[in-house]
């Protein structure tokens, strides 16, 4: 047990000390290099800053020159206006014509740079999507810079457009990739973005977009009609994993570049949403994306590259998921007005509590609380102090419903094949109370598949009332009588029993189902609640193996009820899972889908709405409301018709930081 300090021990000690010292020295040296790199980085950033400041100066100059030229033009050639600009929205609308007509009348004009050198042609200008941004820049207190921090509640594994499926990806893509036109958030009309103007043929089958010549991708290369065609080809290429987008663009017969800056979309048959697909297609750069093979494109993670005001902070090819944040930076070569924020960041916070603490910690600027949390905290001091609270209905909100299976489980007409029964079911459920108590007031009772703020909804239709007496009478008419045990029995003596299937895992959904069970029990209907895991529920729906389902559909400004209510969608696992079939409705839906004129089409949709209201194939429960907290330092956030002011129009006043 003797421990003698030998020469060997000494050597070992010296060696280990030496190793530690070397490691430390390497470390220190590495840090010194790091410092140097940081300084170089700072220098580059400073230079970039200067360059972009110069760009702003040039932009202003350019603008002034343009204005001057226009003024001169209007003196010398007062009646020139050779090119016909169709100021008309895509879904040609009388109102739009008047609206934009008025704007053209204000005499805003612009010179097409392409015609420089020849006699400049002056064209009346349609309200451009950037006009809104320019207006923001002139607002009092407008400030450039800062970082807008948002939050994601899941990991985004893929940013590559077309092949990514995450919801947040499309939000992020909206900052980076642009389309030919976008919807004005106030008027809901289409306003040109990359396009300058467009024509729609009389039959609505051909859209011709004339594009701006000054649009550039974030690497400086120009965006031309060839890029539009390339994007379309990419979507239609069956080797690209984008079945979802492909199902939209299948309706087009061809997309061709007529010249460098004119592109023509040709439809096979008229479809009312086709303009939206054409104008809203995010345009990808041929030069950039054609470096990759189809397989590389499919497997890529972060190939997000476009002409938008922001770009990925890292080289898209180096982007990897799992970094807990996604960061965009200002695209200094942006062709439009200089983007506001230095950076736009999405932080990944998976836990509900952590997300709300991150917001009250001022670590994030935007927070979408859960309904329960919203009601509990919206008036709390910690939220009131730092946040503006928004609570609103949006026409794109979608709706929750109960779908009544018209057939029984063997495929024969079942009890819900009787319209009176369905109406009775709707009237038995107090949807207002459900919205108030279960959804914490963050829902509005629904009158049909079209949102009451959208153009498709028939303004004369009110939601069915909560009227138990009337429901009782309807059930009696339908042959139901009260049995001995208090449960309703039909004419053949079978008790009124069914189960309501809905997705498990959502406390709100479960509470709603239980509420409905109680409401129906009061008149003697025995409903069982059947909570199913999501994929099980979907397979039950596909097999038509349910009595009633409670689920939701997402919405849009103008939606197509064909998929859900047309009888052609019953077979082969289509979305008309309840096997609802009404020839009148089928005819109306087909008519609406083929109607080019927007006003006319809306009239048909109103009729569709009326039939759906009367038939009640679904009991339309509620439209969800949006609830959001936004830090007070974020300015220019207002409630518009489709929701809040687009985030690209926000700016941050660091001085207002609470």
């Amino acid at each position, binding site marked *: 047990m003797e421990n003698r300090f030998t020469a060997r021990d000494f050597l070992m000690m010296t060696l280990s000390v030496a190793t530690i010292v070397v490691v430390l020295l390497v*470390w*220190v040296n*590495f*840090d010194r290099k790091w*410092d140097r790199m*940081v300084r170089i*980085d700072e220098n580059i950033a400073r230079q970039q800053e200067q360059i972009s400041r110069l760009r702003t100066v040039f932009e202003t100059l350019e603008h002034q020159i343009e204005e001057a030229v226009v003024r001169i033009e209007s003196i010398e050639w007062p009646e020139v206006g050779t090119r016909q600009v169709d100021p008309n929205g895509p879904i040609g609308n009388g109102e739009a014509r008047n609206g934009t007509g008025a704007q053209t009348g204000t005499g805003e004009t612009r010179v097409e740079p392409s015609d420089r050198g020849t006699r400049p042609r002056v064209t009346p200008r349609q309200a451009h999507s950037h006009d809104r941004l320019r207006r923001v820049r002139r607002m009092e207190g407008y400030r450039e810079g800062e970082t807008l921090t948002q939050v994601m509640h899941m990991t985004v*594994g*893929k940013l590559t457009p077309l*092949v990514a499926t995450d*919801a947040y990806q499309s939000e992020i893509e909206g900052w980076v990739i642009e389309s030919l036109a976008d919807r004005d958030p106030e008027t809901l009309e289409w306003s040109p973005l990359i396009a300058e103007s467009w024509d729609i043929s009389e039959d609505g089958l051909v859209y011709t977009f004339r594009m701006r010549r000054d649009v550039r991708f974030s690497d400086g290369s120009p965006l031309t009609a060839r890029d539009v065609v390339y994007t379309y*080809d990419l979507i239609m290429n*069956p*080797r690209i*994993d984008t*079945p*979802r987008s492909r*199902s939209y663009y299948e309706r087009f017969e061809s997309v061709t570049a007529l010249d460098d800056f004119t592109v023509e979309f040709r439809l096979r048959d008229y479809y009312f949403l086709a303009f939206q697909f054409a104008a809203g297609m995010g345009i990808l750069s041929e030069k950039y994306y*054609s470096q990759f*093979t189809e397989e590389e494109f499919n*497997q890529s993670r972060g190939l997000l590259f476009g002409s938008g005001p922001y770009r990925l902070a890292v080289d898209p090819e180096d982007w*990897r998921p*799992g970094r807990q*944040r996604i*960061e965009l930076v200002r695209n200094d070569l942006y062709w439009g007005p200089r983007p506001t924020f230095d950076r736009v960041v999405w932080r*990944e*916070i*998976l*836990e509900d*509590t*952590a997300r709300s*603490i*991150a917001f*009250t*910690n*001022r670590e994030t600027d935007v927070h979408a609380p859960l309904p329960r949390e919203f009601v509990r905290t919206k008036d709390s001091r910690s939220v009131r102090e730092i946040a503006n609270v928004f609570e609103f209905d949006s026409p794109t909100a*979608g709706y929750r419903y109960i779908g009544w299976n018209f057939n029984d489980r063997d495929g024969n007409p079942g009890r819900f094949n009787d319209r009176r029964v369905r109406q009775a079911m709707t009237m038995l459920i107090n949807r207002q109370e459900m919205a108030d108590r279960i959804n914490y007031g963050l829902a509005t009772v629904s009158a049909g598949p079209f949102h009451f703020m959208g153009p498709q909804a028939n303004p004369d239709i009110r939601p069915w009332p909560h009227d138990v007496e009337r429901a009782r009478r309807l059930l009696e008419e339908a042959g139901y009588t009260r049995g001995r045990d208090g449960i309703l029995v039909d004419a053949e003596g079978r008790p009124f029993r069914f189960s309501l299937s809905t*997705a498990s*895992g*959502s406390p709100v*959904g479960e509470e709603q189902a239980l509420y409905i069970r109680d409401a129906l029990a009061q008149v003697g209907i025995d409903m069982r609640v059947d909570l199913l*895991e*999501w*994929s*099980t*529920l*979907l*397979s*039950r729906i596909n097999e038509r193996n349910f009595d009633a389902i409670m689920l*939701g*559909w*997402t*919405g*849009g400004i103008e*939606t197509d009820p064909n*998929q859900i209510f047309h009888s052609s969608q019953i077979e*082969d*696992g*289509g*979305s008309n899972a309840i096997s609802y079939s009404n020839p009148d409705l089928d005819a109306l839906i087909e008519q609406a889908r083929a109607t080019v004129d927007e006003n006319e089409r809306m009239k048909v949709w109103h009729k569709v709405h009326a039939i759906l209201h009367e038939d009640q194939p679904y009991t339309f429960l509620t439209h969800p409301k949006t609830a959001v907290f936004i830090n007070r330092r974020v300015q220019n956030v207002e409630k518009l018709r489709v929701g809040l002011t687009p985030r690209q129009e926000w700016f941050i006043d660091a001085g207002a930081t609470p």
Partner: protein
Amino acid sequence: MLPYILRRLVLMFPTLIGVTAVVFFTMALAPGGFQGETEGEAGARTEGTDPRFIRNYYNRRYGLDQPAVVQYLRWLNLISPVGFATSNDVEYTPEQRDAAQALIDGWEPLRTRTNRRRADAIFTFMGQYLDRDIVELTEESLPLLTDEDRILELFDRMDITMHRTSERFNERRRQLKEAEDHAALLSFQLTELELEAAGRARLLLERGPRLKWPSLGETLGREPVIDRIARALPVTLLLNVIAVPLTYFLASISGIYAGRRRGGLFDRGSGTTFIILWSLPTVWVGVMMISFLANKDYLNWFPLAGLSSPEAADWPMLPRWGGEEGFVRGWLLDRLWHMTLPVLCLSYGGLAVLSKVARGAVLENISADYARTARAKGVSEHDVLFRHVLKNSLLPLITVFASLLPALFVGSVVVERIFSIPGMGYMGIEAAFAKDRDLILGTTLIASILGLSVSLARDILYAIVDPRVSYE
């Protein structure tokens, strides 16, 4: 010893097959099977996307509509280092390549920059659908394709095995047939076949098994499973490499001291504390930690989420003082700071079990005959404990360690979720919800390989630590 190890290693294979088979068939035979999540997020479905279109696509892409047994056997073939080649990974001789190339050049309408790859692909699935050897087919089809009537004949032969679903494809084919544009028709049809072939390439059984690179397949997001795991594993490892030794260290020390003075104040105090800690659910503790320790309204001592600060990338490695910015944490310290709460959360629960195990072992040995003999010989109490008793008390701790280690790789679902750390636990739960077949099987496989190797390592360690244990 060696025969024993070999025997154990051989026995691992049936066990692995058993484990993955149970996982696979439980998922595949559950209602909904593997097809659920492809249709959209839970609770709401998106209007405008026809679920049929997407369902068909995924079925074709991943072969999800094949019988479960077939899917599982294909997966086994995929991961096995010895297996059958599929018609997708046939290699061509330069002559075959050129022949195919010549064919492709004849079909103008293929808009592509990658004709060469395409030539490969086309012959791959032609062979697969015609159930013929590719080499044979290449030689045979060249003359065949020169005659237009024969082209159509070839189509008919393909049609027999084809499972056509997409309306658009059918319509387009009809148009081309009417227009008698044979070249376009052929290329179109081939494209369609290729799409269908991706998930169900034919196994070249007639060529016999051979050595190949094992693969874990692809996730639903088209990422190789191995890459996905390689991304998540280091994160989980990092957390556990700190948490596990920490737990062990604290638990053994307190266990030894508690055991030495049984019934003393320290024994009772530490026992009670650890039992209380053990009975606190991690979910609750984690949420409490971020609510109070990472909240500006209370104590803002720790960061909320993630593994490093956004600015950390611009920081030097080591902390430093002075300069313009004053104190800078540095990357290393920042990382440790971010890991404090998750590591605490991961380790506190294990303290109770481990310290009780250590205490029990020490108690048992400290009153053993050999310890008494040592004391009788005049060995100091300190030496009895640390030289004799401790060594013999290691055995149960090793046992516990072996059962702990797999958890180290699989990660903690709860902790990773609460602190937004993208590790194995979170990945596993995501995969299970998304019904991502290959990812689930890949993770299961890796976890069970680890579990089995650790239990083997444990048994070997027994033999090393305790000479009485032998496997001869």
